[in-house]
């Protein structure tokens, strides 16, 4: 096209730092002939000058039958920037633990070359493969090619978002359950919830194999499934002595940093008082050859994390201190269904489950989903006074009745 030379001095500033720049990468695609990428750069430069954003979002875009997986984007200057009048994002469900063959990656990139801007984000904060920028006409053909190659769209909108997990037992000896198998099973088991938005708002599930929580599920998932063990940390005393001989100050670096001070080292033998161990992983991380999680393993189920939107940010809090995580995962799926039932019934529009939990109170919430209060739910001393739930629980209309009786 006879377009004037692209001139983007403000964007060029963003190429000067020591890190890879998104500007460089979009330029590569623009120079490879993607008109959309060229216009994307011009529009961004204009926004930086004007200090005005030119994107509108939402709307009707999607593929037949699905309510999630496509995120609509339009610019408000379609005459000037016709190649990016539509610039929709497709979220593609990634494989558990993000394992690909190079062939699979090429397949995705080739499909996106044919149907979109060529720009990808590997991966988005949901964990999905993010394909950035296409038009409404390309959605169905792109989807058809993806599914023909065994890929499916992920979640978006008020649905169960694409579940994600750490690499788990595939690469990590600390995994206390098979995070990959569980994530794959959740994806298949809850297909309807993933593709047909029916919740008050989004719901994220993330699976970490141990308390190191490599997918940060405690901060980023409404439901965090974090591996743990209920027996004893396995100790190889000879390896502990090797660490000491190699110069590790066990007294200071290991015992001194144990949050509950439940480890002792007498210079020859390491003793752990497992009753008081809170499974923080510190000692295991410090001496991976000498210490390992126990063998009676499972997961702690936590609920309620979210980023700040209406209310402030929140971490998930303990719902079930220990659950065995083994196929067919009935206990876990029952719990999830009860949570969704109560949230679906009582959640306000755009209310995350963690906010609902706070609004009705943990006591009432637990009663509604049929979970017994236990001391592990107390996040801090004198916080959530769990033992008084019965007394504080007031049925709707009960107060008036009592007055009549009195």
């Amino acid at each position: 096209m006879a377009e004037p030379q692209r001139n983007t001095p403000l964007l060029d500033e963003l190429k000067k730092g020591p890190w890879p720049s998104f500007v460089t990468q979009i330029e590569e695609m623009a120079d490879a002939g993607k008109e959309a990428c060229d216009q994307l750069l011009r529009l961004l430069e204009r926004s930086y000058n004007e200090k005005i954003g030119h994107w509108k979002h939402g709307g009707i875009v999607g593929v037949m039958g699905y309510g999630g997986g496509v995120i609509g984007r339009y610019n408000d200057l379609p005459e000037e920037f016709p190649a990016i009048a539509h610039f929709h994002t497709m979220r593609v469900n990634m494989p558990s633990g993000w394992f690909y063959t190079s062939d699979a990656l090429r397949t995705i990139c080739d499909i996106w070359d044919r149907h979109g801007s060529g720009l990808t984000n590997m991966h988005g904060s949901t964990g999905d493969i993010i394909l950035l920028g296409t038009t409404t006409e390309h959605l169905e053909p792109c989807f058809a090619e993806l599914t023909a190659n065994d890929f499916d769209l992920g979640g978006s909108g008020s649905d169960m978002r694409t579940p994600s997990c750490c690499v788990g037992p595939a690469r990590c000896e600390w995994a206390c359950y098979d995070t990959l198998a569980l994530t794959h099973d959740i994806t298949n088991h809850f297909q309807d919830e993933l593709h047909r938005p029916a919740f008050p708002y989004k719901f994220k599930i993330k699976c970490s194999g141990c308390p190191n929580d490599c997918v940060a599920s405690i901060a980023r998932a409404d439901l965090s499934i974090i591996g743990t063990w209920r027996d004893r940390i396995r100790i190889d005393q000879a390896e502990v002595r090797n660490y000491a001989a190699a110069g590790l100050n066990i007294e200071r670096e290991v015992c001194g940093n144990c949050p509950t001070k439940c480890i002792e080292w007498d210079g020859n033998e390491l003793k752990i008082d497992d009753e008081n161990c809170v499974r923080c992983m510190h000692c295991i991380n410090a001496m991976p050859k000498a210490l390992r999680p126990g063998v009676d393993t499972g997961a702690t189920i936590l609920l309620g994390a979210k980023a700040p939107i209406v209310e402030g940010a929140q971490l998930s809090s303990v719902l079930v201190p220990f659950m065995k995580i083994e196929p067919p995962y009935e206990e876990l799926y029952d719990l999830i269904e009860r949570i969704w039932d109560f949230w679906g019934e009582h959640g306000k529009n755009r209310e995350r489950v963690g906010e609902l939990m706070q609004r009705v109170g943990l006591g009432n919430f637990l009663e509604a989903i049929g979970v017994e209060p236990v001391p592990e739910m107390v996040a801090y001393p004198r916080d959530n006074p769990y033992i008084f739930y019965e007394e504080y629980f007031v049925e709707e209309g009960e107060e008036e009745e009592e007055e009549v009786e009195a």
Partner: protein
Amino acid sequence: MAVTAEQVADAMYDLIKEYMGKKKFKAADLTKAMIEKFGEDQCDKALCKQAIRLLVDSGRCVYTYFGGSYIEIPHAEGAAGGA
């Protein structure tokens, strides 16, 4: 249950159509309205889920997103502008 998923789907469609341009419905709103209309003994969440599936898979309705996910009758995209 005497009421079929098709009947619930039709009733949902009528409701959406009646309020088109005035009010948007989420899946849960439609479900509540149908249980109220047909009665708890005739209609439950599972039946409503089936009905929504019928509406969406046939293309009579589509999912839309405006800060949350809604179910609407397909119409021209406002945000798409002249494109």
